[in-house]
């Protein structure tokens, strides 16, 4: 189950989500480097109401760091700590 999947802007057709398993944030998979990933990134197919998602690697790819308002919303709602918000914003390794 994904919670707080935020669409950042209608124009860029991108949304971001976190995976809740038994009320706890869960990992979604591993990146190429073996790093465990927990941020879901969703892209809408052009011209179709179909969304494709994948585990975002915020350390490897700048475009996989959720936008500032998304990070802030997750932190304010208690889904991630301020420490994890900082690590995501800085592209640093971040474990759950």
């Amino acid at each position, binding site marked *: 189950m994904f919670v707080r999947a935020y669409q950042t802007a209608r124009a860029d057709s991108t949304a971001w989500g976190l995976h809740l398993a038994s009320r706890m944030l869960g990992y979604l998979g591993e990146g190429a480097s073996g790093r465990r990933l927990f941020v879901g990134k969703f892209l809408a197919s052009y011209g179709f109401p179909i969304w494709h998602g994948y585990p975002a690697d915020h350390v490897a790819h700048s475009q996989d760091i959720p936008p500032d308002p998304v990070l802030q919303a997750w932190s304010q709602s208690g889904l991630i700590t301020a*420490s994890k918000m900082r*690590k995501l914003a*800085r592209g640093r390794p971040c474990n759950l």
Partner: protein
Amino acid sequence: MQPLKLTIPGSFYDSLLYKGHLYLWDVSGKQITTIDWDRLVESIRVPEALRLPLACGFRASERLYKSRDELLYRDKDFRRLLTSKFARLAERSPLDVSAWIPGCTLKVQPNPFAFPHSDVIAYYDVVYVSSGVGVQYSSCHHIRKGNPIRTNPQMIWAGRATGIAASYGHMAISAGSEGLIDVGLSRYDYRHEPSTLSTLHSTFAAWTYWSVFSGSFESGAYLAEFTQPGKTRDGSPRLDRQDQTQKDLRIDFMDTVSSDQIFGSRSFAWGRHDKLCQIQDGHAAVVRHVPWKREFNSRFVPLGRIALGESLGDLVSVDSALFGFILEYDQGLKVVQSDGQLVTIPGEPVNWRVFPMSVSYENQLHILYDDRLEIWSFNNDYLVDQESKIAGVKYSPRSRIH
């Protein structure tokens, strides 16, 4: 020597200590509180005999560094006296300053920058903030009227920035998978459009004299080498001097050197000022950077390896200060002090910061937790030989640029 510690209660995301003012970003990102730092430190009630370690520990570290070469420091009795004064003050740590915070608060203003930011620095009375939208800047240190930080920030670069570092009129911007970006700052009147120094991944960067060392948690680290100020690529003096002051400080990008070449192996690495470091089997391998030397082996001189002790989880962040190396792991911080002592600070911080380029706060480590800011003051380095030390960057007065 035990570090000193001072605690400020509150929920903060970041702190910046610059020219007598402590700027605190609250964890919601809505406000910045500016505190009269000098007055706050002076307000702390300690016996008169401990005023010296209090002042040098928290608001004027340069006082003892500047006296380093004098006979005073070779005198064993003086060293003993100094050490005992710091030890006596350390016994009173953590110093609680909460009672004086309201009286020393200069202003609480709306945060004019994007939030959550990835990095913040002050450089010649300007605060630069990097975030998901780019690098914004606004002048600071305005105390007498209005807001201490001007409320109309400008943008010098648009894009996701994960770290910034400024020196020699240049801003190095770590842009993750977009590489390492260089922006000329207007101070020296040769501002130029942003240029890419390397397309290789860059998570963070720091200045090593007049070059930039880029570190990455994704791929190899590298050094972006610039020409020595006032010199050309081949090391001869610049002949195009029209304005002596500006041209003498001018530096131009030359090329990058990979950390593989510098260390002879590939692993996570970082660098600042005269020290380049690489993690190797639970140790930090340290190389001295001597950029004015032309031969490769003279430019990068291996100094040795330092044991980092038991791991506190995955490595998250690193930096170097005069007093040692600071490593952040999942479950806490480690400080490898320049005198060889290892300090472990357990607990996951919201954020942390050192001020190695500052004039008066090089000995401080700010650690932000959910409910407080802890300011640690490490004062072992005053008594350490700066030429032979392995951990921590070398003190050199001329590198205190802002």
